[in-house]
Each structure stands twice: as structure tokens, then as C-alpha cells.
């Protein structure tokens, strides 16, 4: 599913000094795995997630997604990959303001084949347990509900890979648990899930844990 080999990422600060965020990182994730990526802040978690999510490209090294080397892809090619193969879930939900749950879920379809299928969006909202919230705006929903809308949005184009960045970070424990169960269900369906977190309780849902330290891999072990 995912093959990261010798990937480095060097950013330039405003004053031009280079900062190494990732240094020669290699790992592979098989289809259907549930993996957490952990590590202190500044360890390169976000950088690796952005590269895995095709929002960013490595400075050196290769990234293969479902056998396809996307390291040198153009913006448009990467956008297509994001659209079809990847679903993002964020800590702060990132619903678009003044937009209903249904409309939020429809957004990825605009960039897919261009056809917005309202029925499909409704079905996916049902799937995450929000059948009665389709016309609600983000501000009218609880945190857990907002995150479920975000998950529905991530699922609408039926991606094989779900990338979640601290998905429970802004939620109370009950809502957080519901979200984790939902992600677990998605994993059981066969979707690959990569989750960045600080939280041990969250990490316990995963079968494998990669710990990053100073831009490199500190440990990579099975937790099952």
C-alpha cells in the first residue's frame, strides 16, 4: 500500500536557513493495516503525514502509493491522487463555515468526476450516524458530530487510505471513543488507516506503532 524509502524533507526558514524535518525515513504499510505515528512535537509527524497525504513532496527519496511512485508528481497529478485514494481527518474538523453537513460531504465530489451525487452524500452521512443532521450547519453540531461529518467527507470518494491527524484531540473522551470505533470499523472494512496522535488510549486501537524521533524512525513495532 505505502512504501516510503529514504525520504528526507528539508524546509527553509524565513531567513533561508534549512531545517531538516525528516531524515532518511523508510517504512512500508500493507493494505488494511491500522498504524499510529507518534512522537514528540518537532519529530516530523506532520511532515510525514503531509507527504503520505500527497499534500507535500519529499526533498529526496521516493514515496510509492499503491505501487505508484508519486514523489515527482505535479500539483494536478497529486490532486487527483488525494481526491481518489486519500481521505483526511483533522484535529479541528475543518468543516467549511456557513455550509451544511451535506454540502461539506459533497465537496470532494466536485473535484472527482465533477458530478455531485446528493443521494450518495446522504447515504454516507447515514453511515456515520448523522442521518438526521444533514441540513445542520457546523456551528449547530457538537464536536463529535462535526468530526463525523469530516469522516463522511473523507469517505465520500471511497478512498483506500484514511489519514487522521489527532482526530480526537478536540473531543471529550466519550465522543473520542465513538470516533475511534468508527475508524476501527472503517479499518475492518479493509481501509488502511494511518493516525497521528499523542494519546495512549487512541494508540491502543492500532495494531502497529511507528515512533518518530528527530526526523528519523525511533521504533516501529506491532502492538497487537
Amino acid at each position, binding site marked *: 500500500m505505502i512504501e516510503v524509502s529514504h525520504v528526507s524533507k528539508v524546509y527553509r526558514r524565513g531567513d533561508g536557513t534549512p531545517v531538516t524535518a525528516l531524515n532518511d525515513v523508510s517504512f512500508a504499510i500493507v493494505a488494511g493495516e491500522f498504524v499510529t505515528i507518534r512522537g514528540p512535537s518537532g519529530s516530523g509527524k506532520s511532515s510525514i503525514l503531509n507527504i503520505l497525504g500527497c499534500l507535500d513532496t519529499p526533498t529526496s527519496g521516493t514515496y510509492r502509493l499503491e505501487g505508484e511512485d508519486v514523489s515527482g508528481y505535479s500539483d494536478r497529478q497529486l490532486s487527483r491522487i*488525494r481526491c481518489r485514494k486519500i481521505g483526511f481527518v483533522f484535529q479541528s474538523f*475543518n468543516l467549511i463555515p456557513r455550509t451544511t453537513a451535506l*454540502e461539506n460531504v459533497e465537496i470532494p465530489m466536485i473535484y472527482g468526476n465533477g458530478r455531485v451525487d446528493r443521494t450518495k452524500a446522504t447515504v454516507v452521512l447515514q453511515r456515520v450516524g448523522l442521518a438526521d443532521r444533514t441540513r445542520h450547519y457546523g456551528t449547530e453540531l457538537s464536536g463529535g458530530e462535526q468530526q463525523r461529518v469530516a469522516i463522511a*467527507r473523507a469517505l465520500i*470518494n471511497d478512498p483506500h487510505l484514511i489519514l487522521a491527524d489527532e482526530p480526537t484531540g478536540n473531543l471529550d473522551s466519550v465522543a473520542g471513543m465513538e470516533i475511534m470505533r468508527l475508524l476501527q470499523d472503517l479499518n475492518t472494512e479493509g481501509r488502511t488507516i494511518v493516525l497521528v496522535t499523542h494519546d495512549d488510549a487512541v494508540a491502543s486501537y492500532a495494531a502497529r506503532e511507528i515512533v518518530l524521533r528527530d526526523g528519523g524512525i525511533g521504533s516501529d513495532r506491532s502492538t497487537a
Partner: protein
Amino acid sequence: MGVLEGIRLAWRSMSRHRLRAFFMMVGVMVGISSLTILYSVGESTKQETIKRFKRMVGTFDTVIVRPGAGRMRGMISLTTAEPTLKFEDAQAIASEVAEIKQVAQVQNAFDIDVQYRDRAATPAVVGVSANWLDLRGDEVTEGAFFTNDDMQSLARVAVIGMDVQKALFPDENPLDKTLRIGDVPFQVKAVLASRGAGPGGGSLDNVILIPVTTASKRLFNRDYLTMTVAQLKDPEDSETAIRKITALMRERHRIAPSALDDFTITSPRASMAQVTQVGSTLSKTLMGVAIIAMIIGGVVIMSLMLIAVSERRKEIGVRRSVGASRRDILLQFVLEALVVSSLGGLIGIGVGLGGTRIVIQLQNLPHIVAWDALGLAVGLSVVIGLVFGLYPAWKATNVDPVAALRV
């Protein structure tokens, strides 16, 4: 993302931010509506001027020869004209210039009293050739215009304009009545159809036409003309005809090569171009003002869009993460600016057409819809949206989704 989907998106975003959309529209709206009003009213005024000018000169396929060098202000009459343009000059133009179809000789005076019984009027008294009606395209409503026989026999016959009929014959039929022009009795043969107002607003119907021969020998006792109107066979030949007439006249008047002409030749076409030029200079200035208003509108669009882009960084990040390419983002924001400015333009056209109607009704002008102005207005509002939307949209494509999506 397709353009249609983008427009739908832009429309939704606009309806979510109505106040912002309104402010973005105002400049374009004001610019476009004033442009529409200026252009339509300008065009209407121009048409009205042309119409009045046409009424005055009759046809456009003529050249006019007047005595004296340089353009004289106002109308020439026998009291102000130089006695250099003779009957024979007119005949020579008719017979020797191949481009000329026919020539009318004209003698006119403005200060002669005309009387019928106890009523009096001071119309323009104009001696003209018998071909005048045909040459000018005028018509008589009653009676018949005088003929070449009347010219030959120096008949004392007159054709009166509407105003003269109203002044002298308010409740009787003027035909065959005898009125006095100065001290000379004339018989009314016909009444001219009304021509309405001239370019200056004055009536063109306050006139009496008599045979120019009679005028010369029996009334004014002058052997020179105030004007000769030469009709062209082909209107396109006016420059050639003017050149030939100039040469002919200089030869006939024995003007030395270094001396100036003692006559002036004008063509109604050229004079009218001058008249309408004045109008269009004014409207061009006003048009400039309108365009400045639109540019200000464009700058407002740009600044509000820039604010919107920084407010919507998160939205841009989300859209990028779910598969929007830079191009999609660019398209979305450009279309937002375009939709807003086009809508502003359309509203502006509506307001402008309403305003035009009011101005036209108040000034009693012909109602003209300047379709080319509307086309220009639509084009301009699209261009404004495009030009001033492009930079904010480009800024939007440069939003780093990674940074935007971080908490």
C-alpha cells in the same frame, strides 16, 4: 472541477456573504449604470441633432457654395453677403461639373415684413429655384410649388411655411390669397409641410419661398446670390465636386493663384460631423469618469477578495486536501470575482436603462437602446472581475494547505 460547477460554487459563496458581495458590486454597478446612461443619452442626443440638422439642410448629397472667404457666423442674408456669387456661377457649376445633378440658386432676407390684411409677420423670405422641393426632399401639403414657367415670367407667387400660415391665415385657406412682401403683392400657391425644429431649436417653418428670379428682379433688386446648393449625382463624390467647383469658381472670379478664395464651399456631411463631434467629446470625458468609477470598483473587489482569501485559508486547505488542484482554487476565486462583477454589471445595466428612460423623457429625446454600449458594459464588468480577481485568486493558490489545516 468544471467551470459550471465553479460558477455554482461562486454563487453559493456569494449568497453566504451578501453584504460583502454587495460592497464588491457597488463600484461596478455605479460605473456600469452611469456608462449606460451616458452612452445611451449621448447617442440619443446625437441622433436628435442629426435629425434636426437633416431637417435644416434637407438632403446630405449636396455641397453648398456661399459668397465670402472663411466661415461666417450665423445665416448669411442679402444685407450681409458679399456680392460675389452670381447667378451665372451657379449655372456654370450645373453645366460644367460632371458630378453635379442640379443646382438651386438662393437669395434670402430676414428683415422684411410680410402682411396680409391687418396681420403681419417677419419670416425668412427666400428666393429659390423651381427645383428646390425636389432637391431638398421637401413637400407641400396644399397647392403646388412654383414652376420653371413662373421663374421665366418672374411670377409673383409664394409658398408659405406652417408658421406663416398660422400667423397670417389663422382661420382661412391661404391658397390664392394675396399677401404683401415688403410692398410687393404675391399670390400664395402652396403651403410647405412642417419641418419642425432646427439644430438650434428654432422653427424651420417660419419661411416664405418665392422664385429666385422674381426675388432678384422684383423684390430685392440684387444680382448676386446668398447661397448656391449643388446636388451630387453620387454622394460619395462630394470631395471631387468640391475640388472641381473650387477650381471653376477661382477661374470665373479670376482669383490669382496666391490669393484666397472669395467663396466658401461646405458639405452638410462635414458640418454635421463637426456638430456631432462636440457632443462626443463631452460624452468621452464623462465616459472616462465612469471608467474610473469602475476601476475603483475593481480595486474594491480586489481588496475584499484579498481579505476573503486570508479569512478562508482553512477552506482552501480543506479543498486542497480533498483533491482540489491549484488550478481548481484559482478557478474558484476568479469565478467568484467574475460572478460578483458580472452581477454588478447586470444590475448596473438595469439601473442605467431606467435612468436613461428618465433622462430621455425629461429632455424629450428619441428613445434609443445603445446595444453596443450594453455589450461594452457587460464586457467591461467581466474584464474588471477577471483583472481584479486574478491577483487574489493567485494568492489563494499559494496558500499552503499544510499550514492552513494546522489548528
